[in-house]
């Protein structure tokens, strides 16, 4: 191999050229918007009114306003509750459970496993806005499948969007996103050869011991990363919640992504909306750095 020790850029110039179309697009539509958001957050730009014709530089006013805004505190709380409820309690646990179930069923030769697998996957693969539509119908107070079903067993209808909006959006998001964690765990579980379980069973280990001694160690390494992954993915949820509750009665399900959108396109305050977007990006960057550190440490 003729390894060249000459200037690295000269050696790699073709490869750098190959990277350039992608790099161009990424710079324009990732880095660009981040910068635009930052700059815009220092102005009072609006979609209409004086601030549309003549946006002014207002320095950190938007940030002062944001962190003094009692509604923003509620929005952050909602986002935290949503992520904990949906990602951590729901998708992670359910995904793990389903992975264990499917792995077990597979090894035992249950044919129906494929059907269950496909069902979970379908919920995840379909476009989010369809998921939103489906669950708007499911949760409908007068005619939704859930309330009609409750009626059939003699229970009264639940006002999902009125009295339990956060629960409703969490359920819908769990439905939507569980496949992700399930796939990851399933992948890890499948790498365990069945013989190990056979040997353990022959040795007299019961189901619990088999799980504890053989299954769990395989899952532990990826558990933390998966948790962080699913948290980050859930953090930016927008369309699903907008379709179901649009922020919920009186901001009860207003998560940070929705708040940014509403400020920019409902209250027509683009500068203020950008401020919220910047906060989102900063939080996300924090998560991402932690994620990368952990994944590098693991590797």
């Amino acid at each position: 191999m003729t390894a060249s020790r000459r200037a690295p850029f000269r050696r790699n110039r073709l490869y750098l050229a190959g990277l350039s179309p992608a790099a161009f697009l990424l710079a324009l539509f990732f880095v660009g918007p981040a910068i635009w958001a930052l700059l815009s957050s220092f102005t009072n730009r609006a979609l209409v009114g004086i601030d549309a014709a003549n946006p002014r530089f207002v320095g950190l006013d938007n940030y002062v306003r944001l962190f003094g805004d009692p509604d923003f505190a509620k929005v952050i709380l909602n986002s935290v509750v949503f992520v904990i409820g949906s990602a951590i309690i729901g998708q992670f646990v359910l995904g793990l459970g389903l992975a264990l179930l499917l792995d077990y069923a597979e090894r035992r030769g249950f044919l129906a496993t494929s059907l269950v697998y496909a069902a979970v996957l379908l919920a995840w693969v379909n476009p989010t806005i369809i998921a939103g539509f489906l669950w708007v119908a499911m949760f409908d107070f007068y005619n939704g499948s859930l309330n009609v079903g409750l009626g059939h067993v003699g229970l009264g209808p639940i006002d999902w969007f009125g009295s339990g909006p956060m629960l409703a959006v969490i359920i819908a998001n769990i439905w939507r996103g569980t496949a992700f964690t399930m796939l990851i765990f399933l992948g890890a579980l499948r790498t365990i050869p069945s013989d190990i379980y056979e040997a353990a069973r022959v040795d007299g280990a019961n189901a619990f011991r088999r799980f504890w001694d053989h299954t769990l160690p395989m899952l532990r390494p990826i558990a933390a990363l998966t948790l962080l992954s699913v948290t980050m993915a859930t953090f930016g949820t927008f369309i699903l919640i907008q379709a179901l509750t649009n922020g919920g009665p009186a901001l009860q399900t207003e998560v940070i992504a929705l708040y940014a959108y509403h400020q920019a396109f409902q209250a027509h305050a683009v500068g203020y909306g950008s401020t919220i977007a910047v906060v989102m990006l900063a939080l996300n960057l924090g998560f991402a750095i932690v994620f990368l550190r952990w994944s590098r440490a693991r590797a």
Partner: protein
Amino acid sequence: MDEVTRQIMSRRRFLQVAIASGVVVACNPTSIGSTSPSQGGTAPSSGAGGSTPPSGGAISGTVNVTYPDEAGFKPKYVEQAAAAVKSQYSGVDVKIDLQKIGDDDFYTKLLLRLDSGDVPDVIHVGGSLIGELSDAGYIEPLDDYLAGWEDWKQYPKAVQDGVSYNGKTWAIPYGLDMRWLYYRKDDLQKAGLPADWQPANVQGILDAAAAVKSKDAGVLPYALYAGPAGSSGTADHAFVPLLWAYGGELQDASGKWIGDSPATKKVMAYYAKAYGDGLSPKEIITATKPWTAMREKLGNGGLALLFEGGWVYGGWAAADKAATEQNVGYLLHPTESGGPSFTVGGPGTCWYITAKSKNKQAAWEFVKAVNTAEIVGKLNAEDPHPVARTDAADVTEFKSNKYLVDSTKALESARFTIPSPDYPKVIQAIQTATARIAAGELSADDAAKRYTDDLKQAVGADKVTSL
């Protein structure tokens, strides 16, 4: 004309100044920039260099008209006007973009368009938006065109006043807004109330709703708009009339928006009772567009009490005239201590020409065409509003319609919302505050206090006060 001064002047005095400056402008078409009163140093000269005096040259080009409509009454008149313009001026084409979506969604989409390169020539949005649209430089002042339009004299001074801002006229109204307290005679009778029911005071509405709730489980007692989903109705059809009923005001003498006040507390208490006692359905704050369902239910008897726009009656009458006349009653809004006495008035949806339009002359021809006495009269007969121009009321369909006569008369007892560019933002604060109390998150007093915060977030702390 700076904010403070304008708020202090009464509508009539302001009108005199408006007319005076309009006359000056009409006599000196090229001196628009120099005669416009000082604008407090904030707004750009929204129209300087933009409006050209009507020229005698050939009128041609494409006029893009965009407007929202859900009720279905306007399209044929808009098309009629388009046809009239096309036949009168062979070089003109009129492209109509009818959007069958709600006003709020239409407005946001419109703002995005006005900001971009694809600007329509003629738009049709509420008159209350004049202030902010003008400040943004999106709309064209019409004074030059009006100077050459005889028909403008048919519009009463108060109406002309309602579409003025900063000394210029910005839009042509076709039908004025007014609102009624609608009630279902059949539902109230079943609840034991008289057929010619009149609330003794504003509390009477809640009492009647409670009666309906106890006697008839299948009927919604009352629809009190709250939250953002209720759109401008949350303010104009719910919060603001209640505020006035309890003796409150939107602004104080210096022009600051009033947040917490004794009247505000009472309004919040009213909301708390309406939603807490289950008199108004939670659906209003959870549905995407609650007013569609509420209007429909009042029309078919599923809802007993509703304070809504006068024009909604037209939809019910179009579906079943006899049943509507028999079962739907309408009253003015009561006050804290007395019976029906006022309504909420407004300039209604108006026709504007955009500032970046490339065919203003042709656009003006279209605006004139869609606002002839005949069209205004006929449209308002179907989509009932008091007409903006008095000669339109001479149309026979109009004069013979008891409902239209009543609506026009009701305007004499109308109170008008404030044509300030900040009012749309105040509406948003009202939406946030009412959603909170309707969801039962705070007590009435606390909700009134939070409303002050909402106002400060919306318009800035220096423009807000509390009593």
